[in-house]
């Protein structure tokens, strides 16, 4: 009984982690069609922003939920103005440019923070479920992921800004004809996407030992999640994160953590073979 509860929590946590690490990419890649290979590095920078802010005496939750997203968002803004805005619509070129950016960020972080492992301890204590101890921080991550999805939904579906952004992504010429500046809209959207990446890196920072190359561990998983999700932004994110999270956790518990990772990749291959356009090309059609 206790064990099944623990497994349930671990599954929710795995899904929440996938949602978190993929949300920023879903906006930048799913909406804007920019292949951002520096996505992992944005997360890494979010982690360092949190650790630096915390060591300067800022409350750890403020650092994670406010400061890190803002800082990484601003970095994203600069990157968009200097590099990305010249490359909209050129898929392969964005890939090359952002790969260069990722190398640059790794180098810069190494110069500033050194090539050593840093970290902060988790701010929430663990607690017992029957005979088991659970990491209380897992619940925090699940909550953040839920809040993030609700916020995305509210902004994209419920607000005028979201409507304009979605419209501009589909037909920027029409948006321009109606008096909106696509340039501004792209800039703002990229800022949001980067901030979401920064938030993910910040929230995960207390669980990992952070090194400048940490971003590499997330990049593959986040791309797989976003691509397998398909055209619908939020429905795709949730459906693919849920399927992969559950599959990988089942294999992790039944066999070993390595098999869990393998199962995730195999599931992705099978899924994309059956549904090359992603889950939401067949299910939840027309949803956001």
């Amino acid at each position, binding site marked *: 009984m206790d064990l099944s509860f623990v497994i349930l929590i671990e599954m929710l946590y795995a899904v929440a*982690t996938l949602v978190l690490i993929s949300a920023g990419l879903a906006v930048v890649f799913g909406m804007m069609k920019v292949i951002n290979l520096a996505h992992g590095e944005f997360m890494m920078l979010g982690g360092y922003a949190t650790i630096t802010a915390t060591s300067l005496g800022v409350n750890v939750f403020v650092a994670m939920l406010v400061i890190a997203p803002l800082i990484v968002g601003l970095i994203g803004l600069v990157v968009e103005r200097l590099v990305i805005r010249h490359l909209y619509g050129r898929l392969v070129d964005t890939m090359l440019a952002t790969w260069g950016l990722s190398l640059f960020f790794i180098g810069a972080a190494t110069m500033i923070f050194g090539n050593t*492992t840093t970290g902060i301890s988790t701010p929430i204590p663990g607690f017992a479920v029957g005979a088991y*101890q659970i990491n209380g921080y897992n619940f925090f991550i699940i909550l953040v992921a839920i809040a993030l999805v609700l916020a995305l939904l509210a902004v994209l579906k419920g607000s005028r800004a979201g409507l304009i952004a979605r419209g501009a992504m589909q037909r920027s010429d029409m948006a321009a004809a109606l008096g909106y500046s696509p340039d501004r809209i792209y800039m703002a959207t990229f800022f949001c996407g980067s901030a979401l990446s920064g938030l993910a890196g910040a929230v995960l920072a207390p669980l990992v030992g952070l090194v400048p190359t940490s971003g590499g561990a997330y990049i593959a998983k986040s791309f797989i999640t976003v691509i397998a999700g398909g055209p619908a932004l939020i429905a795709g994110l949730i459906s693919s994160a849920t399927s992969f999270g559950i599959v990988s956790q089942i294999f992790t*518990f039944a066999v070993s953590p390595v098999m*869990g990772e393998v199962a995730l990749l195999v599931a992705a291959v099978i899924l994309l073979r059956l549904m090359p356009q992603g889950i939401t090309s067949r299910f939840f059609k027309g949803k956001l």
Partner: protein
Amino acid sequence: MSLNRRNFLGAAAALTASPLLPRAAFAADSIKLGAIHDTSGIFDAYGKPMDQAVRLAVQEINAAGGILGREVEVFAYDTQSDMALYSQYGQQLTRQDRVDVVHGGILSASREAIRQTMRKTKTPYFYNVLYEGGVCDRNIFINGVTPAQQVEALVPYAMGKAAGKKVYILAADYNYGQITARWIQKFVADNGGEVVGTDFFPLDVSDFGSTLAKIQGAAPDLVIAPLVGGAHLSFFRQWAAAGMKGKIPLASTTLGVGNEQKVLTAEEGDGIMVAYNYSQELDTPANTAFKAAWAKAYGSSDNIHETAVSTYQGVKTWAKAVDMAGSLDRDALIAAMESGISIDGPSGKITVDAKTHHAVLDVHLMEFKGQKMQVIETLPQRQPIDTQAVCDLGTNPNDNTQYEIQI
């Protein structure tokens, strides 16, 4: 203060020229010592202090009059954490610089990249790192601990601290982790225990949530974790975050080699049991003097770690052997090294094992406390029993293999 070769030679030349020093100037030609370490890139946390250790040891040797009245000159190369550069610089050291000895290499892959070059060119090679054991080659000398030396000491101590006999192993998924896990299984069985689970993790795994649940499902009395690198450090963090600390004792064969005790907070690290050849907290005159000399040369002694000390001791052992041999000839040097030579270094007494060219050394049992590795107990002069089981250079001097030790 950072010390590069030019600065160092300048300083050494100034010392040589100083009339106050009570010794004659060095003979004209210097002894060439090659050093090959990753002083940049992802392994620089290991490599930088090792490079500093070589320079410090050589500085001390020269200040004391050099070896055989000759000055020692360092030829150092930075391999940038790139295995391909090892072969290149290995060739350069042996064929172009024609050095008399090479110290260096960090990962086992880097050692194997240059070992054959050293052997072919008859350049004595010192590998001063703890590693998985089993290398049998007359041309190489190794003074780091091997898994058996470490695990043999750690397992009985950790099991003594545990409430029962059930052990769970979490290991890094490559040859070091696999081999070490096998040794742990052997010594747990030898001490009357039972291994209830063994899990291997690729080096980039950083999420251990499900593992924590699995471990608790198996309900062991002790967890032993030969995990490696930054991603695996997350395990110790998540272990503490889940409140497991204090419920099940934890031991590791790797945590602390890169000074990880300073990365984990005291709450996360306190109580973790380890066993190594060196700790900064060792309270011996040799270690105190060593730390003072290091701080004087480099500003702070905080970055000293086990492999840096091994490197320092490797250079000192080599110097003593050359003095004893009275020449730089390779065979004379090997004969001197095989004569049961030993030095008293910062980590204790290090004796060269003639049969395997490995080291007989002190293993210190330690516990993390307040971001330091407190020495609990010293087990003096442990034999490299794993390599001894497969390697005998006395009867088979032409051996040139790395044995995979069957347990």
